[in-house]
């Protein structure tokens, strides 16, 4: 493979970097001219859209399926499709940000978004521990900065701080675990690692490595009990950043880790004998999943801030998605990825709606949503689509996502009761979740506010909400179309 091919393989990423540079120049020039911030936002987000379109085009047209030595870059069809999803989420985030982020460093905001997306791109296409670590850090560090972007608001700084600290610890755990894995197998190539681990007897070192990798993983995806950063980060960070953290970073994180775990740690499956078949990462994943589903859903019940509520619901959804991770070695990651993608779409939309409400009322508390149906029917109906999809009500995508996940875990072989209990618990907790999701919708549709003024939506946000809602509905009505590309 020569450098020309390499450039072609990386054309989407290269384009994104180039556009990041263009944004820096354009915004710097406009700032020096003293142009209005709104104009700078429009130009920068326009360029971001252009970058996404260009990268999407190059994904479709240019990128050949390729494979670098040591699994540095292994681009697969699924990876390319997920990159497309990341691009969609990136452009949605950019459009939400254009109307809502308060900052003077406008260019930098969009550049950091792009850099983070590039990190996610590499996460989606690498099968090498080194690349995985660097990509994860690239994506995360950019997000730490973004979380603290509202420099006037102490809550934003605190959110960034907490996100950073927990993220840093997670990275250290992950790296230490990876170093042990490297020590045991002598390779950073995930496939080689998987081959050597598959006939290696269980040892304390391997167990430590597994636990550490899982802990790092759990931090990143905000699975309980490693989720403590998530509510604070979601609440304090600018809404658009929270949307990006909750959606794109989750899709990329799950895609990366399910690859790492299924290829690199082909441990034992859940068997008749039970949970504790060391060195299986699966028993840990079961525990994480159980904790997340219970903790997330119960903690969400008493939240008053919608952003915090969405954060706890994100913890719960991480629990559901871990079920998909469990099913992946046997049945493929199809169910997990469908769930992750549709969840991301609904979450971006929900945060977009929160952004609109917060902009007009200055609050994201539940009662700020009161009478939304009167104040902006379009916003209310879109919000209903997102929330009902998160709750898993048909015909929206969330229902089929959950259905598929539970069917997948039940379809795994072995008559172990564990999977029945897991699926049962997941169904039970999703009943709990309906309560707090309906609390939001109660405010939106049922409560009536006499004096509330209408909420004006700017055009980009309107498009984001409309497209996301349409996407959630379409993915629910025609799941096969999405399943075929994942």
């Amino acid at each position, binding site marked *: 493979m020569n450098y020309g091919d390499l450039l072609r393989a990386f054309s989407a990423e290269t384009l994104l970097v180039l556009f990041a540079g263009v944004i820096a120049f354009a915004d710097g020039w406009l700032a020096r001219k003293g142009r209005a911030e709104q104009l700078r936002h429009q130009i920068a987000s326009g360029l971001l859209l252009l970058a996404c379109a260009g990268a999407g085009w190059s994904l479709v047209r240019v990128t050949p399926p390729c494979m670098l030595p040591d699994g540095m870059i292994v681009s697969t069809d699924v990876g390319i499709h997920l990159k497309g999803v990341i691009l969609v989420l990136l452009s949605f985030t950019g459009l939400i940000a254009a109307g809502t982020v308060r900052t003077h460093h406008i260019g930098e905001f969009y550049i950091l978004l792009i850099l983070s997306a590039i990190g996610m791109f590499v996460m989606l296409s690498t099968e090498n521990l080194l690349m995985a670590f660097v990509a994860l850090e690239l994506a995360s560090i950019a997000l730490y900065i973004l979380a603290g972007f509202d420099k006037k608001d102490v809550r934003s700084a605190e959110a960034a701080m*907490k996100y950073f600290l927990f993220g840093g610890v997670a990275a250290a755990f992950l*790296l230490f675990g990876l170093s042990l894995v490297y*020590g045991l197998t002598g390779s950073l190539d995930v496939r080689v690692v998987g081959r050597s681990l598959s006939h290696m007897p269980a040892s304390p070192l391997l167990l430590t490595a597994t636990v550490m990798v899982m802990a790092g993983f759990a931090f990143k995806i905000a699975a309980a009990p490693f989720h403590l950063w998530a509510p604070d980060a979601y609440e304090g960070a600018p809404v658009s950043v929270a949307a990006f953290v909750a959606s794109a970073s989750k899709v990329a994180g799950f895609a990366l880790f399910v690859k790492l775990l299924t290829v690199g740690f082909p441990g034992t499956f859940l068997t008749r004998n039970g949970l504790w078949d060391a060195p299986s990462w699966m028993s840990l994943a079961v525990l994480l999943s159980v904790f997340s589903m219970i903790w997330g859903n119960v903690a969400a019940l008493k939240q008053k801030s919608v952003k915090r509520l969405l954060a706890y619901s994100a913890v719960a959804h991480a629990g559901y998605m871990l079920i998909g991770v469990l099913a992946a070695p046997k049945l493929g990651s199809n169910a997990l990825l469908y769930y992750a993608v549709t969840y991301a779409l609904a979450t971006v939309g929900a945060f977009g709606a929160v952004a609109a409400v917060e902009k007009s009322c200055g609050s994201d508390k539940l009662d700020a949503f009161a009478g939304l149906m009167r104040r902006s029917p379009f916003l209310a109906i879109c919000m209903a689509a997102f929330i009902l999809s998160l709750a898993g009500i048909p015909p929206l995508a969330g229902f089929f996502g959950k259905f598929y996940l539970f069917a997948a875990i039940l379809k795994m072989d072995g008559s172990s009761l564990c999977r029945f209990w897991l699926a049962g618990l997941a169904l039970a907790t999703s009943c709990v979740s309906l309560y707090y999701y309906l609390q939001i919708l109660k405010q939106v549709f049922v409560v009536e506010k006499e004096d509330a003024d209408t909420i004006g939506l700017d055009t980009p946000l309107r498009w984001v909400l409309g497209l996301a809602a349409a996407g959630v509905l379409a993915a629910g009505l025609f799941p096969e179309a999405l399943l075929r590309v994942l």
Partner: protein
Amino acid sequence: MLITLQHYLVVSGLLFSVGLAGVIMRRNLIVVYMCLEMMLAAAALALAVFSRYNQNMDGQVLVFFVITVAAAEVAVGLAIIVSLFRLCRTVQTKDLTHLKF
């Protein structure tokens, strides 16, 4: 005494544990950062040792990346501390109480 792989691993594990304990227990954000760095350094040490043990360079290459990433992380982390300090004049973890349910 021959210094073996085990010795290095014990040191690395100790470093990591000390770092983790510091992150959890220390109250000053700057010290917490240093402990965080210590955890990364522990991992880097283990990598270097394993690289030697496995007779290939992959681990040492990764160490370079780890150092770079750690530097980037510190830069960002310190910037976050500065921005936090500007707003609430403190670097103590116990004062981070603006976000609560």
